[in-house]
């Protein structure tokens, strides 16, 4: 896949992720304001989808660069994904120590 093909694909993934997340957040926001205490699940689904969207974009880049045998960028994007994972793990370990 060419670079601009990857760009279009990434753009599409980001748009889908942010749309799904926004719909969940809108529904959850209205529900939680109408009946306080309700609908935290869908709000959290919206937030998790939002957070996972850039991570999905990184995974997609790794796959595309691997298929294209562009090893420099496969390595760079893999390092970025590892950094995200390290951050998440560190957050859980750190949280438990508090």
């Amino acid at each position, binding site marked *: 896949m060419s670079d601009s093909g990857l*760009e279009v694909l990434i753009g599409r993934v*980001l748009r889908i992720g*942010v749309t799904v997340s*926004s719909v969940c957040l*809108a529904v959850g*926001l209205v529900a939680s304001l109408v009946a306080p205490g309700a609908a935290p699940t869908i*709000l*959290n689904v919206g937030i998790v989808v939002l957070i996972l969207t850039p991570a999905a974009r990184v995974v997609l880049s790794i796959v595309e660069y691997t298929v294209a045998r562009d090893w420099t960028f496969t390595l*760079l994007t893999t390092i970025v994904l590892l950094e995200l994972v390290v951050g998440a793990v560190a957050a859980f370990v750190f*949280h438990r120590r508090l």
Partner: protein
Amino acid sequence: MPVVTPALALVIFVAGAAAGSLGAVLGIGGGVFLVPLLNLVLGFPIGVAAAISLATVIATSSTVTAGKAGQHLLNFRFGMVLEVATAAGSVLGGLTAQMLAQATLQKLFGVVTGVVALATIARSGRRNVILDPRAAPGILGGRFHDEESGQTIVYRIKRMPLALGASFIAGNVSSLLGIGGGVIKVPVLNGWCGMPLRAAAATSAFMIGVTATAGVIIYYVNGQLLPTAAAAAILGVQLGSFVGLKASPRMPVKMLKLLLAGVLAAVAVLMFVRGVR
């Protein structure tokens, strides 16, 4: 901490829309405006303000990137190289933020935005553009059609270590203070690394999604990302960045830079004064 009533949710939504439109036009995310609004005006602790702001930064980044993907303004390859540095900085910043006092973070916010405002004013006349469209942009440089001048603009990336260092610091400050980090990257990439302002802004908007993700996970796990307030802010920022994205190609570069500097200077003074008190 304020209770998120329907009235407060509406205020947060409007604040998000204002911050998001400015952030999208300037390519720096809405965080630099939203954090002071949530912290100084609405009374949320700075950690909660930073968490909410980082979540809106992700939404802005996804929306702006989706809107610009396929145009050549956004330099994907260069952005992905810099993400290695910015994500590392972001993870460290998110963890450090948990250990610092609110007043310390407010003073830091004031200093960072103040320095960036001065740097932006000092370099507002520079364009850093190779005007010959046949010139080679190199491996990481780029080429795009500029709507303002109607010309094809070619640029080459200079001072790669500086770009990486600035990205690391931007990621760090981003997670620490809840801003996109574009306030640091855009002036550095534009002023010293050879990128035209619009290309630097688009590429920064692309990178801040990953930067903010690395940081927001830490706040989320610590329970600082209030779902209802975050939802109101994110939806407001979404609306604002949609409007900003539509308006930005028609705005002149010099005006953008001075607008950026003016707003940053005001934010810097407000946050610093609150931190000192």
